[in-house]
């Protein structure tokens, strides 16, 4: 059995091209997403049209310039500014009319209705600025009520931290469903399964060696993705990596079973590749690798919750982000356990070592 496992590992390891794609695909994802910067504050482009310069308008421009998220541009014509707002050049246009004696200076803000968050942020900032200036002009200085805000160092969870466990889960799934079904299908095509059947070796031993080899290599892949994420792109990993590996291995049994089922149905390796992709791709997009499943329509969430990749990703995030023990992922583990049994039944029904 030992010799068989070592041979299976050699087969995986020496097929460099297949190995590269199996291992590198999710790592490439980890790199690409690592290059994006998801932490930027919204950048608001403001055009300011001042009809007649005054100390008030000067103060306003200075105040806007001090807000980091604003990039302020002065324009001469309100018509041009409005035009360009419609075209989407500006998020907000601030009009400062000429001051009429005895009248309050009425600032007006034009905003693009399609961009709600940016507008609210910009309008409230402008209102706050006007309030401060009113108090100053009224001679109330220092202002009677002041706010001092202090940041408390809390746990920082960014999109990339959310994404990384998803990528690990996706990598395991693809490596096993696609990799296993294509490999077994190729063994069948090359008559290796039949050749094995002509020896006293029990077929289940041959398959077990394949499974063990793939479980091991999947962990190498998971380690690789996590290493790139944490050491190259500084992802935060709060939980115990060993729990992640344990989860990956349990779920991998499901994916390997599905791989066997696909290999049992596919006429040849190309067909296996196609069917395996049809099984894996929907899960990759639906089960929350890239986005929380809560963003899906509710009807779909009901179904998606029970796909095998979903509880794996949820459990992995509970461990990786919340820093919880694997014991806190009871419902997910139960679902994964059920899937191990169900997928084994599916595989047993669809996979035959030899075709009569």
């Amino acid at each position, binding site marked *: 059995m030992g*010799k*068989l496992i070592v041979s299976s590992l050699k087969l995986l390891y020496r097929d460099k091209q297949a190995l590269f794609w199996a291992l590198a695909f999710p790592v490439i994802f980890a790199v690409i997403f690592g290059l994006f910067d998801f932490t930027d504050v919204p950048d608001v482009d403001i055009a300011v049209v001042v009809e007649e310069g005054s100390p008030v308008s000067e103060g306003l421009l200075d105040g806007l310039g001090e807000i980091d998220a604003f990039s302020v541009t002065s324009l001469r014509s309100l018509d041009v500014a409005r035009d360009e707002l419609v075209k989407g050049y500006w998020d907000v246009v601030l009009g400062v009319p000429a001051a009429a004696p005895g009248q309050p200076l009425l600032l007006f803000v034009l905003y693009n209705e399609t961009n709600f968050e940016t507008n609210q942020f910009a309008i409230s900032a402008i209102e706050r600025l006007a309030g401060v200036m009113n108090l100053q002009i009224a001679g109330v200085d220092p202002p009677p009520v002041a706010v001092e805000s202090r940041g408390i160092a809390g746990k920082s969870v960014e999109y990339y931290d959310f994404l990384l466990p998803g990528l690990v889960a996706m990598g395991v799934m693809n490596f096993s469903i696609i990799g296993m079904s294509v490999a077994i299908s190729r063994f069948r095509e090359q*008559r*290796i399964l039949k*050749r094995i*059947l*002509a*020896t*006293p070796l029990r077929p289940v031993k041959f398959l077990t060696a394949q499974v063990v080899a793939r479980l091991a290599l999947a962990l190498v892949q998971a380690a690789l993705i996590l290493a790139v994420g944490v050491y190259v792109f500084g992802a935060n990993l709060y939980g115990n990596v060993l729990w992640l590996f344990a989860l990956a291995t349990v779920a991998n049994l499901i994916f390997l079973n599905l791989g066997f089922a696909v290999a049992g149905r596919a006429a040849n390796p190309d067909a296996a590749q196609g069917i395996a992709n049809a099984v894996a791709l929907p899960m990759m997009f639906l089960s929350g690798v890239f986005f929380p499943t809560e963003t899906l329509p509710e009807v779909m969430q009901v179904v998606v919750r029970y796909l095998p990749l979903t509880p794996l990703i949820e459990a992995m995030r509970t461990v990786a982000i919340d820093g919880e023990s694997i014991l806190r992922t009871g419902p997910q583990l139960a679902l994964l356990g059920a899937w191990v049994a169900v997928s084994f039944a599916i595989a047993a029904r669809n996979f035959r070592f030899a075709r009569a």
Partner: protein
Amino acid sequence: MSATTRPGEREARPTGSAEAEGGASREPAVEVVDLEKTFPAPGGGTLTAVDGVSFSVARGEVFGFLGPNGAGKTTTLEIVEGLQSPTAGVTRVLGLDSHRDRNRMKERIGVQLQAGAYFDYLTLEEILDLFGSFYPRQVAPEALLDKVGLLDKRKALVKQLSGGQAQRFSIVASLVNDPEVVFLDEPTTGLDPQARRNLWDLVQAIHDEGTTVVLTTHYMEEAEFLCDRVAIIDNGRIQALDTPLELIHGLPAAYRIVFATHQDVNDGELAALPGVVEVASPANGAATHELRVSRAQVTLPSFLDWASGRGVEVDDVRVLPATLEDVFLSLTGRSLRE
């Protein structure tokens, strides 16, 4: 345990047919009784691949199945090897039922499948070592590779071998357990004549060590050269079974007299010569004539008398024995190559 020596009680090849088998205590190498195999046909109904085949192979024999593609050779072989189950009938190897005693049988046989069947990314040495580990006893990979002149390729992958080398490897890989019976399915299909000759030498070497060899082929030269006995199979039935020589001598015309002439020849006169069974006239313009005759030594003198008496100048006169191809033709009315 790694035993490379052959058990002493195994004897050298018997010279006769299956009946020349030793004492009653020794079962034949292979015994097949009333074997049938049907498959569901694609358009409904059933397709009969093997239709009542019975034969037995003596220990130490080289036994061949000769027949065209689709005749049922491979199906028969795979049922005997325990790879497919029969629809009806019994197959035994070394006295063990191919299906009920499958695992004990597998330990004592070697199987070479029609094509390839080895891992892409293991070296020759690793494949032999791995397959050897499936058996209670195994032959050292070096010894096996040496036997087929591939010792210097021990670190090579199968895909780095030539067609002939790969085929030699696939045969030697069926010997990892020092089997008592070896099954070779079309061992030389697709090889060039030189590589085929090499393989014949290998099969004979295996045979000389006392191993029983059961092979299939659709090359009549191969069956004639290698096999002690040949079963001619067509449409799932054994049409004839005997030594190649007996099969040929069993033909009404066991010889051919071939000659060339540019003169007009009366076929009727040739047909009237003693011992002539059939006259094959040349197609338009060709000069070569062929007489199928039962006994060449009777026909030849009268043929030469006829030629000199008629003033026919004959050239390139040859007497050829009939071949298994002729046997197949006379049994089935078709050529093997069809």
